């Protein structure tokens, strides 16, 4: 497996707060990488540096590099919109747009210039199939997406992200607002998707990291404490703080 993303000496400040401290990590292609750690440890912040979603917050300052396919994404020549097309994102709370299911999925392709109805139909069906929700919604594509259940909405958001054919899918605690059944469906989906996509998932739930991820990174107070194969990290952590966290001594 080759590495698709690398962060080098990444630091991030929110105003005066030093939220990420010298993070170095490499993320392998077509695998699931999980970020764990207590609330406020910087795992979500770090996830958002990977497709520059932090650019939207005015007080953020970043130093260091994040390389995607060898290119520093913070280079001034990088087209942020194209970057976010290739590195998609699924958010903590399902956030479908207040429009029809079809238009939600077609939003991304339309943004990137696809107008042909035939092509859009094809993309919509394929994305919904890939997100394992086609059968549930195929008869109501024109209905408003806000009428779906929370779990369906989240799978719709995954389908929406897939519709622009990304290489990487960033998931920011995608199941924290969902019930156990919806959660397990999203987990199955993630495992299915890693055949074709690289997935980086932030999770509060350590069992989830164990169940689905290949590699796990443990963050604490803005630092990357330990990073390695999930099985190894959970069975033989090398750092005392990791051990304390995964055995439930804090967090």
């Amino acid at each position, binding site marked *: 497996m080759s590495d698709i993303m690398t962060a080098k000496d990444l630091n991030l400040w929110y105003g005066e707060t030093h939220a990420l401290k010298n993070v170095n990590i490499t993320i392998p292609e077509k695998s699931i990488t999980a970020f764990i750690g207590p609330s406020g440890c910087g795992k979500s912040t770090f996830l958002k540096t990977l*497709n520059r*979603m932090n650019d*939207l917050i*005015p007080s953020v300052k970043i130093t260091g590099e994040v390389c995607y396919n060898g290119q520093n994404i913070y280079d001034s020549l990088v087209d942020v*919109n*194209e*970057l*976010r*097309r290739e590195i*998609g*994102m699924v*958010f903590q*709370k399902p*956030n*479908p*747009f*207040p*429009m029809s299911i079809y238009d939600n999925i077609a*939003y*991304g392709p339309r*943004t*990137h210039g696809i107008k042909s109805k035939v092509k859009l139909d094809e993309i919509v069906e394929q994305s919904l199939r890939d997100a394992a929700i086609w059968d549930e919604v195929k008869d109501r594509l024109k*209905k*408003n997406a*806000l*009428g779906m259940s929370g779990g369906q909405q989240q799978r719709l*958001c995954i389908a*929406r*992200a897939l519709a*622009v054919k990304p290489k990487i899918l960033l998931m920011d605690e995608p199941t924290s607002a969902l019930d156990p059944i919806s959660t397990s469906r999203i987990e199955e989906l993630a495992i299915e998707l890693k055949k074709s996509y690289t997935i980086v998932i932030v999770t509060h739930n350590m069992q989830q990291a164990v169940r689905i991820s290949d590699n796990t990174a443990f963050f604490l107070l803005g630092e990357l404490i330990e990073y390695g194969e999930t099985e190894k990290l959970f069975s033989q952590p090398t750092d005392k703080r990791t051990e304390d966290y995964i055995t439930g001594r804090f967090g």
Partner: protein
Amino acid sequence: MLSKKRKAYISGMKVAMYISTGLTAALVIFLVAYVFIKGIPHISWELLSTKPSYISGRIGILPDILNTLYIVLATLIFVIPLGVGAAIYLTEYAKNKKLVGMIEYAAEALSGIPSIIYGLVGMLFFCQFLGFKTSLLAGSLTLVIMNLPTVMRTTQESLKTVPQSYRDGAFGLGAGKWRVIKTVVLPGCVDGVITGCILSIGRILGESAALLFTAGFAHALNGIFEGLTSPGASLTVALYVYAKEQGEFGVAFAIAAILMILTLLINLSATFVSKHFAKKREF
């Protein structure tokens, strides 16, 4: 058990509240009824469809109706793009939040200025300095300045009601800023923007002081372009002229009744728009 004093106090307060509610309702009903009773008998097809003629002694308010329409249209054409555009810039693009706060404060202060002051400034600036003379255009531009802060502020407030998560979702798909605004933010708050505009139509209809100085008192029947460049009385100004200078109180009350019906219709349509969109959003 409540003491006697306490009981008397409670029932006294209750009576006071009934009286104040009753008085408020009675005043509104009295005002509306009075204007309608005095005005409606004077509304006739002739009044609505002709212009005044001194030779036959006939009074018609068609020119005033058209003038009002022209003023509303001309004002909206300027005020909507300016106000909505400024609001989009200030809420979505502007980086300097301190400056934005100051502009918002200034806009709110502006909307509290008595309209006669706008009229005075409009007369000096548009009619004289820019040489528009007393004309509907000068009047409309004055109303643009007057309504700009309100249109801008209501648009800003409705932009702020669109959840950040919609914006994040669109940015996350690689949409550029303008596309996010056009396809996600504006459709999400269009009802607020439209309601704001409808309410400002109401204010334009009801404005008189600012127009007395800038738009004049003429009753000539004109097409829209000719009308905008010549002086003309709006319905409110015509009401003033007929009542105060010609003693035609019947006509004045007829105009008053028409204005009240229009205001009512405008408020109803504003309510309708927000209800319609609220329903649509519930899928």
